[in-house]
């Protein structure tokens, strides 16, 4: 979905398909002296345990709505011309892109700060869950998991 917030073009969505960064790099215009790209990738370890792939599950409708809210808040707080975030769902192999955030702005400070804000809010609020698959064949949901009392 795309919208205009505080003069910025705002786009956020989930994707079952691989994220193509080249397409995201067309963001902004010649008025923008700064473009930041943050990429999150599937890491081959977590807390010292070898990871071989992972699976993202999302509450799709809510995640898209929450992502739009994060982006709108961000576009209202910094002077940006383009703000775009994509988060993957489904099965991802090592090195695959899990999230990409592209910000175009007249000046770098706003682009960096907005980018950092978006990733931190995604981690805090987006209803997306990650199941890691380990080299020993086990799988686990990441984060505190309730246990039988």
């Amino acid at each position, binding site marked *: 979905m795309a919208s205009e917030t505080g003069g910025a073009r705002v786009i956020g969505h989930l994707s079952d398909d691989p994220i193509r960064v080249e397409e995201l790099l067309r963001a902004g215009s010649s008025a923008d002296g700064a473009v930041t790209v943050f990429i999150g990738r599937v890491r081959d370890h977590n807390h010292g345990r070898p990871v071989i792939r992972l699976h993202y599950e999302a509450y799709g409708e809510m995640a898209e*709505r929450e992502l739009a809210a994060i982006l709108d808040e961000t576009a209202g707080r910094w002077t940006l011309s383009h703000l775009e975030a994509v988060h993957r769902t489904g099965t991802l192999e090592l090195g695959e892109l899990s999230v990409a955030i592209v910000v175009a702005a007249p000046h770098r400070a706003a682009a960096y700060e907005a980018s950092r804000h978006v990733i931190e809010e995604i981690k805090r609020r987006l209803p997306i*869950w990650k199941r890691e698959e380990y080299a020993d064949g086990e799988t686990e949901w990441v984060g505190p998991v*309730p246990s039988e009392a």
Partner: protein
Amino acid sequence: MTVTILLFAVYRELADTASLDLELPADATVRDAMDRLRSLPGLGCLPAEPTVAVNREYSSLGRDLKPGDEIALIPAVAGG
């Protein structure tokens, strides 16, 4: 009234279903729905203050429910 419960990730696996309907009194709150859920197979471990969303927005447990509300249990998120 009837409300719908959505279960994701670890909760979906514990309950062995992605969604279920609950029949609740007309004056029920989200907390009442959680108390009812704890009596179902696999969900006895539901924390005292679980994170929930009602109709796709984060919600407090004290919120009054309406017929047809969609209540999602949100386990610890791990996006990014």
